[in-house]
């Protein structure tokens, strides 16, 4: 397993390098990072020259990238054009807030998607299944920002009116004076987490449903039924376990994609995370923050993919021992035996 993870990490290094180079090129293609400041009478010639030198903008493109990467790897992420704070501090603060949001979303979205997916598959074409299908269409078609506003309006006009007190909040991470209060934090997290969950649950529940249906139609499930294994046990121990393999992989990959989703959600809810940092940096042409953000986002997505690979490897032995014919054959044999044993498991 360690060798497998090591191989994945080795492959990730050139992927990160290539991705950061492409992102650096894309950000550079936006034009002169100082353009906005050059015609601003508030910036003197000297200030602009100092900035060019500090951010290596007076060097050829490839050298700029090399210098930036060198600085980045050594932890020197430069200072923000706008706040003049070290970018590493800004990203450091924001990344935890986003990880909190994404982590919580994952926990709840995975649980809910699993539940919906399994019940929909088991009770195929039932009222619940149709309802779940309808919900999925709703989730897919509802834009994040619009759903976020609907939730805000629900809280403001329905919930607050009904209860007379603030149960949920529409912006920020804490109320003023309640910093560090976990309950207050949770009250602020509900709406952004629900918004982020919407699309994920819609997609993952459909995925889990399909995966379950495929497994439920498999021969070994039929065999288990024929052998009189109780229905609940078939679902829980045989069908769900096998159906989870692709589900877990998809979730792990999508966790990286969620980082893109937080840009809208954090902006709407003024959540001080990576999404809001990106939004602000983009609006203000804050070049050093944009570059660092993209590099961190790249690493996040690559790590999410490695986690997906590792989980897949954990769940399916054929993957992690891929590479030698003998081990592949052994893995295939193990898997086949495992499937047969699962089907033959005593009631």
């Amino acid at each position, binding site marked *: 397993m360690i060798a497998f993870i090591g191989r994945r990490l080795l492959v990730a290094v050139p992927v990160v390098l290539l991705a950061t180079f492409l992102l650096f090129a894309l950000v550079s293609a936006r034009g002169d990072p*100082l353009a906005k400041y050059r015609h601003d009478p508030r910036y003197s010639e000297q200030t602009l020259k100092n900035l060019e030198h500090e951010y290596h903008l007076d060097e050829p493109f490839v050298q700029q990238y090399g210098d930036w990467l060198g600085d980045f790897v050594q932890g020197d992420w430069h200072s923000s054009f706008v706040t*003049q704070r070290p970018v590493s501090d800004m990203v450091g603060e924001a990344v935890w807030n986003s990880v909190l949001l994404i982590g919580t979303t994952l926990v709840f979205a995975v649980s809910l998607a699993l539940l919906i997916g399994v019940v929909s598959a088991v009770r195929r074409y039932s009222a619940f299944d149709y309802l779940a299908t309808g919900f999925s269409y709703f989730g897919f078609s509802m834009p994040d920002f619009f759903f976020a506003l609907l939730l805000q309006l629900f809280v403001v006009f329905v919930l607050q009116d009904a209860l007379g007190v603030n149960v949920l909040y529409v*912006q920020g991470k804490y109320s003023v004076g*309640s910093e*560090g209060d976990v309950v207050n934090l949770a009250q602020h997290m509900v709406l952004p987490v629900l918004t982020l969950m919407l699309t994920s649950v819609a997609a993952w529940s459909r995925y889990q449903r399909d995966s379950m249906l495929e497994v439920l139609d498999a021969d070994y499930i039929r065999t288990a039924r024929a052998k009189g294994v109780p229905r609940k046990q078939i679902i829980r121990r045989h069908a769900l376990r096998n159906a989870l393999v692709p589900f877990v992989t998809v979730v792990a990959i999508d966790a990286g994609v969620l980082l893109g989703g937080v840009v809208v959600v954090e902006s709407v809810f*003024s959540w001080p995370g990576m999404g809001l940092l990106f939004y602000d940096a983009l609006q203000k042409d804050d070049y050093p923050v944009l570059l660092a953000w993209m590099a961190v986002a790249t690493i996040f997505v690559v790590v999410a993919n490695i986690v997906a690979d590792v989980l897949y490897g954990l*769940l399916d032995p054929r993957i992690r021992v891929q590479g030698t014919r003998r081990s592949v054959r052994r893995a295939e044999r193990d898997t086949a035996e*495992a499937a047969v044993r699962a089907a033959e498991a005593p009631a």
Partner: protein
Amino acid sequence: MRTTKARTRRLLTALILPTVVGAALVTGSVGAGATPSAKAPKNQQAIVIGAEQFPPVLNDMTSQGNSDWTAMVAGPALARGYKLLPDFSYEPWIFDKDCAVVTDSPFTVSCTIRPEAKWSDGVPITANDFKFTYDTIMNPKNDVVTRDLYSKITEFNVISPAEFQMVFKEPFAPFRELWAGTSTTVLPRHILEGQNFNKVWNNCICDPKTKKPIASGPMLVQSFTPGQKVVLVPNTNYWGKQASVPQVVFVPMRDSNTEINAFRNGEVDMIYPQNQIGIRKKIESVDGAKYTSSLGPSWEHFDMLSSVKGLDDINVRKAIATAMPRQQIVDRVVKDANDNAQVLDNVMWMVDQQAYQPNWDIYPHSGDVDAANKLLDDAGWVKGSDGVRAKGGVKLSFRVGTTSGNQARELAQQIIQEQMKKIGVELTIKNSPDILDVNLSAYDFDTIMFAWVGSPDPFSNNIIWLSGASPKPCSKADAKKGNCDYSGLNYTKVNDPQVDALLNATDRETDPTKRAALYNQADARLSTDSVTVIPLFQKPTQLGYKGTIGGVVDNPTQDGFTWNIEDWTYSG
């Protein structure tokens, strides 16, 4: 059997691990996010204000920090020579009286300081602090927002701790502007001498050695958490009226819908959103909320590039001005926010200013289509089969642009477009988000709508009208790179020697009445002989706040709505 167990273990790991990690993240992040103030008891007496443009840094004098919101957030901590009142007048603040012209040649102005004025650490505010501020601004190493006005000073003499004199190269009537407005705050010499001005007050208004907050105004900036909040508390050593609100907290609001929802939900007590149609109703619908609006020194206008074929005929420009439905625009776009809004008939002075004369009322507010048609008929512009007038192969068909996404301007555009059809002038809407950054400086527009940000004294607007202040043409590509000439703002190419003479005389005329008359003469001349810019209306401010906050008076000048924070009261 072993394989089944192993597989079960793997599955459990795959399911439980994310849950455990998620829970750990929640716990970890709560811990990471908690600041030392996190354990402070919940303060119900804090007034929480939603800030649409949260200050990135606190030093309003630097190019990074200079913005309306930085001024409103940090302004109450830092007194200026003058306070700008809501009626656009100057009230001596640190000064004990209005600065006086001592001699006309060389032009010398003397200012004297109140004896009771002191910093929050008890050190008196003296003429040396003003001299230090002047030296800081003029030091080329310092990243200050502007030194244009200060560069007119040739000598800065400290006469005594309570008096200083400024000697100017030539008579300079708007000398009060040097010590008014929030970007010209007075700096504490005993605190900042020898410090790196570009960074020292980015994250605090404090003594960098002790980190203790310092202030000359009624409030202290107790803490600044970048991107999250700024906390102001009363300066108990303030030499003026003591503030009674225990705490004022500014929090960022990125989204205008969220801002109003947060106000409705009671999460913020006060909001100051940009002018939006319909926001007044939303604020007023909140139980116990109060709404107020002022007409500020920023004004919207419709510009015509006088070098464009068709628009180079002053009769066409006059016809457009004559038909312009300015009253309808005000009714549809501004009245919603401010009941007192009216058509602006002067490009130098705003409606409430004493010197205001309605020079542009020669153009009927409701737009006179018949008179406009007659003007065009007389000038030989003939309507074609498509209803668009033409002469000598030139059609009166123009682009009209503005910043896309600006709801109020887009509505005004549509009103104008419809009206112009009636006089045979075709306007095609071409908006873009960076039209003011790119198209304006590239002269790539026919007609355009935007706002000039004014100040109580109109001197800063001279470069909109002086013939020598037309920037050199700049290609779009160069404009995108920022390689343009930005020394002037005369984008419509006004070229009138008489206007030049009148405006140049305003800088030298120190008698306020005569100076106002000069500006009005220039304005009248622009309305009859140039007509490249049609004034529409003053932009309204919109302030919503809980009824439990008392003493709030909006101030549309640079001093902003926090200008009288010491008068505020809060009953929870």
